[in-house]
């Protein structure tokens, strides 16, 4: 499942050193739980989800989430981060099929 996957992240462009700010992330993904049945054939639709999400800032972990099928379609996460210097925030999503989606946002201090 690599079609139509689009990560979206909202971070502030500028942050104050040592002060927490909120990050919102969303990735479009159908998150097939493996519980649903195909209405025509009656067979189970195989599981296909994003199983892990990480956020790192200059190589240091902010959050690392392991995700199970009970997370909704288009998984959305909101969390807080605190930084001391300017740098790049890297967001990575790991798909069941081995695909890895990532996006980077730079955060300035000011």
């Amino acid at each position, binding site marked *: 499942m690599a079609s139509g996957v689009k990560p979206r992240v909202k971070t502030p462009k500028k942050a104050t050193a040592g002060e*927490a*700010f*909120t990050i919102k992330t969303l990735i479009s993904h159908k998150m097939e*739980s493996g*519980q*649903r*049945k195909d209405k025509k054939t009656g067979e189970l639709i195989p599981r296909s989800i994003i199983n892990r999400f990480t*956020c*790192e*800032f200059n190589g*240091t*972990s*902010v*959050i*690392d*989430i*392991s*995700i*199970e*099928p*009970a*997370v*909704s*379609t288009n*998984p*959305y*996460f*909101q*969390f*807080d*981060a*605190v*930084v001391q210097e300017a740098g790049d925030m890297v967001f990575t999503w790991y798909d069941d099929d081995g695909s890895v989606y990532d996006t980077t946002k730079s955060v300035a201090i000011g």
Partner: protein
Amino acid sequence: MEFSRRETIALGLGAAALTFMPFRVDAAAEEVIAAFTGGADIGEGGVTVTAPEIAENGNTVPIGVDAPGAAAIMVVATGNPTPNVATFNFGELAGAQSASTRIRLAGTQDVVAIARMADGSFIQASAAVKVTIGGCGG
């Protein structure tokens, strides 16, 4: 493998003790929680679960967890076919030990959050959510 009468009685007592756990969660959820805590005792307080009292659509139920000083928080939906929901591991740069997301709930149930604190102890809290339409496609 055969059980003697004594062993059978001991097993029965153990099973009875399990059913009288203070927190009413079913067996599958209990296993998931035990795997996370390693069988350690779980305290109360210090962790908050934010969830709506009534969710009209079980496919997207907004929840939030907050546990100051936690290293990780696991969310368990006790009434789902697979009770695991997600585990949040907070890194060094986490601004607060809180996060929110949207989850699927199969029906009316308790959502439990268990936090592993920095010192290795565990605390938990739960929130009851009424679900009008379940979110597991059944």
